[in-house]
């Protein structure tokens, strides 16, 4: 048997699964987004009509799409820097020669990452409960007024962001910690001999050496945060006043609540396009920054 044929036999199961359950559906989504596939088409495929770019055009004129897009960008633009900041802060602490019980701390700090989003979102719902939540109780102890965290349109998204940061920072912490540990100690040695302060060592050695890792972490986190769904589903059901309806939440509602598969596919593809564009932009900025 030829080597090439063997290879293809080994590849077949995985490629078949990926092809049938991922690549074909992705192309199908593109196709669906150009049709008016809805409940009637679901009942009888003969009701299906090709509508071209109509769904995308409608999307641009739909206030709820812009709201969802705005909410999602809010979540990404505020959540990602906070997330990575928390990851970098804890990674620096763990990497400090002064830190004790490193393995224990690393495990504890990472624990939220492996927990189930839905289960811990439920915990946060109760911790941020207006009447009985411990968070408002702590505020009361400090003499502050209670906040209706998940019921006030101004506070719902910040609460979800706080939750996401808590849930996710450990992941990037591990990656950044590995990046920090890969910095050759001689560099710090030399800087110390030259009399560079801690801050200047951080600024001129740590940050530049960490740069490639940072770019990677940023791209992965941005792409991940654009896919906000389970948190609002469990914590706020997209409310109050649609202040936490994300793009994927909208796709889910359009598709699986109202069975407008054509419209929902257009929403999905719009999100894909946005993620792709933002990723490319970030990579280009990173490259330009590296050259400068």
């Amino acid at each position: 048997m030829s080597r090439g044929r063997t290879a293809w036999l080994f590849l077949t199961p995985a490629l078949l699964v990926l092809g049938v359950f991922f690549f074909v559906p992705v192309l199908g989504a593109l196709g669906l987004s150009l049709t008016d596939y809805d409940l009637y088409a679901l009942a009888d495929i003969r009701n299906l009509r090709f509508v071209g770019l109509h769904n995308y055009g409608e999307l641009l004129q739909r206030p709820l799409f812009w709201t969802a897009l705005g909410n999602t960008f809010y979540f990404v633009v505020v959540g990602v820097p906070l997330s990575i900041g928390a990851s970098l802060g804890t990674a620096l602490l763990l990497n400090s020669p002064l830190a004790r019980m490193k393995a224990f701390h690393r495990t504890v700090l990472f624990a939220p990452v492996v927990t189930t989003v839905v289960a811990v979102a439920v915990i946060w719902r109760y911790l941020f409960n207006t009447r009985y939540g411990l968070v408002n109780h702590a505020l009361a102890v400090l003499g502050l007024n209670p906040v209706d965290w998940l019921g006030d349109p101004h506070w719902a998204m910040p609460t979800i962001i706080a939750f996401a940061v808590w849930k996710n920072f450990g992941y990037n912490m591990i990656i950044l910690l590995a990046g920090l540990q890969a910095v050759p100690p001689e560099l710090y040695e030399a800087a110390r001999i030259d009399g560079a302060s801690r801050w200047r060592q951080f600024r001129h050695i740590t940050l530049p050496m960490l740069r490639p890792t940072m770019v990677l972490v940023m791209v992965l986190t941005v792409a991940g945060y654009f896919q906000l769904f389970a948190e609002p589903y469990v914590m706020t059901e997209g409310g109050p006043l649609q202040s936490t309806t994300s793009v994927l939440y909208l796709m889910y509602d359009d598709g699986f609540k109202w069975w407008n598969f054509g419209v929902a596919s257009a929403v999905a593809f719009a999100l894909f396009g946005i993620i792709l564009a933002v990723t490319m932009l970030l990579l280009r900025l990173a490259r330009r920054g590296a050259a400068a």
Partner: protein
Amino acid sequence: MNPRLARWLVNGALFGCAAVAVLPLLWMLSASLMPAGSASSLPPPLLPAQPTLDNYRALFARAGMGRYLLNSLAISGAIAALALVCNLMAGYAFAKLRFAGRERLFRALIGALLIPAQVAMLPLFLLLKYAGLVNSYAGAIVPGMATLFGIYLVREFARSVPDELLEAARIDGAGEWRIFVQIMLPLLKPVMVTLTVFTFLAAWNDFMWPLIVLTGQEHYTLPLALASLVREHSEDTELMMAGSVVTVLPVLVLFLALQRHYLQGLLLGSVKG
């Protein structure tokens, strides 16, 4: 800065962060042991006055938690096992078997990592609907049977196996399948553990796809059951916390037991990516 003060600051900050990370989880455990209704009092209690397992009893007896637990175990277990087989075979082929277009195909697959999984979900639902797999275990399992990440992970790991080892076996007349099973698989053991933990945890925690495809309660996984419980019984804090414990505890224990493998996979999967 005074070195003693610096040490104090660093460790104080670490302990503070660790406390923030773990306190919600400890409160969940504590509240799950409180008698029904007692978490909703003022001031909110931190510890149960009289610890009780009543909430767990209620969950399993009345809310059918046992069934959801088994569903979660079955679905995540099946995904982990099937994905292990597919990803091992494909990762090995990309690392060690030469064929025309290998690098190009691999690069295309890695490029596809940019496509969010949710883009495929609407047509996938229709596909499975026409195949009669909506609201079945198979519907939740089949899309997870191979993963781009898993193939990448195995390939990275398998590349470090020297070609001479495989060539020697070929010269001895061993068949390709035997080389894979008897020589390659024992060497891939560490990545097999890593991959299994990773896939199992991801499948256990997955929410959106099961929510879409498992339409009947009898097939619900734990996250689905919990999400639907919280919409119906949002007043029963203690019951919900017991449900969260049942959902989170298995994965937390699995992670603690196999932490090293899990973190290795995380680093292998992202630092070079």
